[in-house]
């Protein structure tokens, strides 16, 4: 199974291509070595034969058949020419002189190069030697053969050839085995990741890809995938939490509406009562729709489809407008709403979204602050970074709740019955994320201070 996967894997196919290319190059180099070596050796031997042939031919032309026979006898007796083969025959192929007993039957050409097996073993050898010779037919029909034993030469070439072929084969086999081993290891790790993925799809997000502790790139991949799974698991949990909350927050008004309508449906028609009932139902529906709009608005902001609308805006100016808008609400609540800080705090962003976020924060501060207390909005540049802070002097939030308040529908116990749907801070957090801003919650003792650290404006 693993082997089949190994052979099918891309890594292995790439390895094969690499081996093939490499092998071809190596084979080409070795073939070149083989060819040039053997042709060099052969040409040396050919030169020696040719030299001898020319001198014998010269002797024949100078002093005729008898002179050549004498020279041949002299040559055969001389040990320094022991490597050479000679044979001179008359037109009826009867040997006249030479160290070869008879004219080889396979040799028919009149002149030029030839190669043939000797009819009998040379002295002191058992196998029939391979001979290479130069032929000449003289005008009277006498034929001369001058050659050399090239058996050694031939077997030398054969040795090189064998070496070249085995070397190439060895390279192919070793490379093939190495790539199978490497691929198998890779495939094994990938298979572990695949198996975990399948297990996750089948049973749930609690599985994790096992690490080998080798700290290699595969462990890195596994680590990151596991982190991603952690994140997905958290998100899934949040989604479930949100859908539970949506269900709860929607069911309550929907149940109310249904009950009201059902009662009216079965009861008698009373004009004024019906009018009030319809009015209440529309108001309840509007509340449900507001939750929907808020949720889809947050979702749309979170998908960051709006960065195109970013431009340089003055935080102080936006905050000023928010404060002006909420001035009446604060006044109604007996809260003193003030704005302090620098007159120009520039950020790169979307005015509407920033307005909405600040409005939500001011709204929260007024609602959850102390009745008759004060809310301070401050804009400043701290270390070159634009910062807006909204502080109240109400009961504040316990530090351990800080991380929860940005979750959708999250409401602190003591604010469960104040108006609101628990989506305000989720929106703030979505807007902050879109703007790359960091949210900081601080104890204002008493009260809560929320700071939005924007990134430096891009010019």
């Amino acid at each position, binding site marked *: 199974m693993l082997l089949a996967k190994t052979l099918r894997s891309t890594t292995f196919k790439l390895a094969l291509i690499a081996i093939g290319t490499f092998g071809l190059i190596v084979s080409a180099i070795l073939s070149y070595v083989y060819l040039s070596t053997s042709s060099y050796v052969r040409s040396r031997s050919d030169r020696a034969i040719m030299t001898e042939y020319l001198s014998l031919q010269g002797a024949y032309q100078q002093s005729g058949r008898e002179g050549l026979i004498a020279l041949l006898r002299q040559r055969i007796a001389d040990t320094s020419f022991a490597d050479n083969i000679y044979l001179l025959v008359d037109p009826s192929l009867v040997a006249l002189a030479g160290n070869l007993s008879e004219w080889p039957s396979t040799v028919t050409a009149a002149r030029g190069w030839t190669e043939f097996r000797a009819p009998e073993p040379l002295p002191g050898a058992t196998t029939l030697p391979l001979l290479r010779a130069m032929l000449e037919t003289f005008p009277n029909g006498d034929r001369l053969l001058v050659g050399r034993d090239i058996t050694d030469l031939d077997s030398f070439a054969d040795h090189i050839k064998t070496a070249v072929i085995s070397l190439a084969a060895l390279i192919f086999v070793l490379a093939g085995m190495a790539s199978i081993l490497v691929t198998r290891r890779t495939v094994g790790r990938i298979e572990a990741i695949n198996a975990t993925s399948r297990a996750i799809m089948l049973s749930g997000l609690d599985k994790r890809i096992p690490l080998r502790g080798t700290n290699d790139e595969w462990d890195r991949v596994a680590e990151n995938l596991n982190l991603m799974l952690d994140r997905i698991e958290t998100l899934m949990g949040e989604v479930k939490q949100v859908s539970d909350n949506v269900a709860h927050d929607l069911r309550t008004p929907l149940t109310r509406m249904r009950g009201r309508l059902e009662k009216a449906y079965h009861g008698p028609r009373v004009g004024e009562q019906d009018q009030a009932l319809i009015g209440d139902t*529309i108001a309840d529906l509007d509340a449900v729709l507001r939750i929907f*709009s808020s949720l889809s608005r947050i979702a749309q902001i979170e998908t960051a*489809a709006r960065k195109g609308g970013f431009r340089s805006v003055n935080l102080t100016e936006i905050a000023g407008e928010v404060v002006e808008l909420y001035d009446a609400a604060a006044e*109604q609540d007996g809260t003193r709403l003030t704005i302090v800080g620098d007159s120009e705090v520039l950020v790169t962003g979307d005015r509407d979204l920033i307005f909405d976020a600040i409005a939500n924060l001011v*709204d929260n501060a007024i609602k959850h602050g102390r009745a008759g207390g004060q809310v301070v909005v401050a804009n400043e540049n701290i270390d070159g970074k634009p910062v807006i802070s909204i502080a109240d002097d109400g009961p504040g939030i316990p530090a351990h709740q800080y991380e929860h308040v940005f979750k959708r529908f999250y409401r602190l116990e003591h604010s469960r019955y104040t108006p609101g749907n628990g989506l305000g801070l989720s929106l703030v957090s979505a807007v902050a994320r879109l703007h790359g801003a960091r949210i900081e919650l601080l104890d204002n003792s008493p009260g809560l201070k929320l700071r939005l650290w924007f990134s430096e404006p891009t010019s």
Partner: protein
Amino acid sequence: MTGGHRRILVVEDDPETAGQLVEQLTTSGYQVDLAANGNEALSQGAASDYAVITIDRMLPDIDGITVMRQLRDDGVAAPVLIISALGEVDDRVRGLRAGGDDYLVKPFSFVELLARVEALGRRSDTIVKETILRVGDLAVDLVSRTASRRGKDIVLFPREFQLLEYLVRNEGRVVSRAMLLRHVWDLHFDPSTNIIDVYVGRVRRKVDGQQAYPLIHTVRGIGYCLRAPG
């Protein structure tokens, strides 16, 4: 809006919604034509002169915004109200509003729809030339940016004056909260809190407090209407 130019083209593929729209607009004195898809809308829109065209954004054949662009290319100048089930956090929506057209998110109340249609239809009306607008005993001086009732000055913050001015300019017509946010605060999203009501409440106390009769009236579930009695 005055005169005989109260003809509206409604482009909507859902028969029930279309029926409701036609009924409501007819009741409000409009002459309504209906197109059930983009192609019908294109031929009808080019054939007649409409005061306003409302287009559902998701039509069976052509996207509503494309229909609108096509109509513009065909030389149809009527303002368009795009009605959509998609949200508002979208640059295209902002583009629509900047271009004098409008965008309304489904589901909507018919009062809101009527208010938007009225506002769009009025776009081409003649611009008020007077520098002092009067409703009943209220006088709004557009040059000195002051307001008074029965000659007695009303102290208003600049934004409060803008709000009152917008209400006065739309005398007798319903103005929704979203319209107020857009025209007074230049904000392009629907308010999720009652903040506008609180704000208008304060303006109303300044304008209507200790007076013979109220001018600013609440329209339940939608917004406000400024009108003189009688």
